């Protein structure tokens, strides 16, 4: 049905209603510009709102994976440094054993060498007890725990390297992804790494102390050094794995953040343009309402 005539109340009602709508639109656009966000309620974009919830959850998980990777890298770096020290200790022990194996040294020199080996035994024990922020690196990262390796006693004859380790039997893994398989081991039990070294150093000390067969100790020292070297290689590989994972996580975060921004964030250029458009529409409406009064016979006839 066509509208043949328009009532005055209808015109004013339209102006009031439309100006209200435009003012609401202006408020919405101004809020978008101020906050930078266009998606403020689920009904604005239901599918987008659901995606934003997923992006938020994904980004929170990724942040934890990045955190875990960083933490793991720190622990492995501390391990690597400690293992280097252990390696140096064992290399020095091999040098001593090689020198003593020549058989041309005096008893005093053998005693001095034994004393140095005793120091190396203490040093390797200290390496095994390495702490990072109060946590034992080679004892499952136990917090505020007793030193996992017992100090060698004054009388080394009573020392048993096989029983020196009393730390955790449990290794520690960090979570670098969502699935249960995305784990990286960041600790190794200290006894598996250092017990061969402690045993080899103790054997060398005993051999020197008893003027025994020093060359026979070289094989044990070499094996112990190789155990430490192998663990260093493993630590290096896991460090690289964590660094690589952190890079991947950072990339995923950038991707997710960009995708979330596309759904959630306001396009400022488009929003400002829409704001100008709505302001113009409101001004035009108000101007039109003024003109409407001028077209009344009340004014034209000056009644």
């Amino acid at each position, binding site marked *: 049905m066509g509208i043949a005539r328009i009532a005055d*109340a*209808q015109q004013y009602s339209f102006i009031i209603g439309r100006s209200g709508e435009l003012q609401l639109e202006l408020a919405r656009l101004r809020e978008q510009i101020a906050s930078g966000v266009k998606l403020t309620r689920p009904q604005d974009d239901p599918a987008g709102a659901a995606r934003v919830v997923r992006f*938020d959850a994904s980004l929170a998980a990724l942040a934890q994976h990045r955190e875990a990777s960083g933490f793991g890298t720190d622990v492995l770096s501390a391990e690597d440094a400690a293992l280097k020290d252990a390696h140096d200790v064992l290399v020095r022990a091999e040098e001593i054993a090689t020198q003593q194996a020549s058989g041309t040294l005096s008893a005093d020199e053998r005693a001095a060498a034994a004393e140095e080996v005793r120091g190396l035994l203490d040093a390797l024990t200290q390496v095994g007890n390495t702490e990072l922020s109060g946590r034992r690196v080679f004892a499952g990262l136990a917090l505020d725990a007793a030193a996992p390796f017992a100090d060698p006693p004054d009388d080394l004859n009573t020392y048993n390297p096989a029983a020196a380790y009393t730390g955790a039997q449990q290794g520690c*893994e960090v979570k670098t992804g969502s699935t249960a398989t995305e784990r990286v081991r960041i600790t190794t039990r200290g006894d598996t790494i250092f017990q061969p070294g402690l045993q080899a150093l103790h054997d060398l000390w005993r051999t020197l102390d008893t003027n025994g067969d020093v060359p026979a100790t070289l094989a044990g020292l070499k094996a112990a050094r190789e155990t430490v070297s192998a663990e260093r290689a493993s630590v290096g590989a896991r460090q690289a794995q964590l660094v690589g994972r952190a890079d991947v996580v950072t990339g995923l975060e950038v991707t997710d953040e960009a995708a979330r921004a596309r759904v959630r964030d306001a396009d400022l250029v488009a929003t400002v343009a829409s704001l100008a458009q709505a302001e113009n529409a409101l001004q035009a409406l108000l101007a039109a309402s003024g003109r409407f009064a001028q077209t009344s016979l009340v004014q034209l006839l000056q009644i």
Partner: protein
Amino acid sequence: MAISSSFDIARRALLAQEVALAVTGNNIANVNTPGYTRQIPELAAEPPTGSSDGVLIGRGVRVRQITQAVDPLIARRLLASLGDRGRHSALAEQLGALGETLNEQRQPSLGSALSKFFDAADGLARNPGGLGERETLLGTARALASEFGSRSQAIAAQQRAIDDGVVALAAEANGNLEKVAQLNHAIVAAEANGQVAGDLRDQRQLLVNVLGEQLGLHGAEDASGAIRLTAAATGTVLVDGGQVVRGISTRPLPPTPAGLDGLALHEVGFTTPAGGFISLPAAFDAGELGGLLEGRDVAIPAAQANLDVLANGVRTSVNSVLTSPGAIDLDGNPGVPLFGGTGAADLAVVLTDPRRIAAARSVQPGDNQNATALADLRTALALDTNADTVGDTSFAGYLAEEQGRIGSAAALADDTAKASALLTTQLEQERSAVSGVNLNEELTNLLRYQRAFQAAARIIDVTNQTLDDLFQVL
């Protein structure tokens, strides 16, 4: 024909134009009166009379009747559309409010509380012996429970507010039915005596439209001028003539099912003149009342049920990990549950000693296996949404789906309400085009009737001068 008859013609014309001017003035005066229907003075020529030479001569003008500019078809369509608008607007408003309550786009959100809880679990996995990490886990668990609780409270409060609205609306509608019956009586009495009842009709139509938006009604006017109102959904007669046949009332529902706050909700029904209560839920499916009832009884319980699914899923999954066989706390004791409760409303942290959190699966210092398993719940398909005892959705996934569901329902209701409002606006414009006052038109009429009045006065003047001339001859 006597010359004096010209005076009669002029007199009638003056009276008729006076009435027309008064009607026009009344129209102008009511230009902004809501629901006012413009009135039209219908002028008609007086029946002619025969002159002495047998010629029929007119006897002037009279106001035959004053009518209202009404299109009954538009009024009926408008009444039907008001019922739709009332229903959809009320439902859209309730779903919009629900969307705000469960809005995950603003902080603090349930999703962020969940993330922080699992962040704390991750932190505990990195340092299972750390008391700080354990306190953080407890704190974020309490915050999570609080978020569930506050949302449940808000949903329950919204349901209670709707129920209060239902009771108030029913009472208001009942009062309006009484007024319509009274106006019916007054209109029939006035028009039977030949009086113009336009203003009474306008008052009644306004009330009928309000009732239509409140309840969803059909209305039909009978020959006497009374309007008969029936419920749109069931055809139940509410008002017939000057009588309210069925009033609207509410009564508390039986204790079960109670509202989400544990208090009784109200049932809407009909009252009989004898004071009885007739339960007929289908009759109240339309209008604002229908929208409120759907929000109260369907949308809100569904939202709460879905929130309960999530809360229960979190509670059982977390407790299951913490009390799993082999789970050990910091002092080597078996694990205990972290959360208690039966749903979102009463989800609570029941573990108070941070040392009792079972982060390990052995007594080995530094064991983080259970804390890692707890952190794994962040993305695990831990939520069983189809009751097959197998998890099929992650917490975040469920929250996202729920956000989409609520948003879609609110957006759909909003779109439907806007479409319904648009149709109503269109019909109101059509009604206004017929019945509304246009000042330019009325001012033109004013001038027209003024000029006619002046001309009639001139007839008297000319007739008077003619008589003067005649008297001078005599």
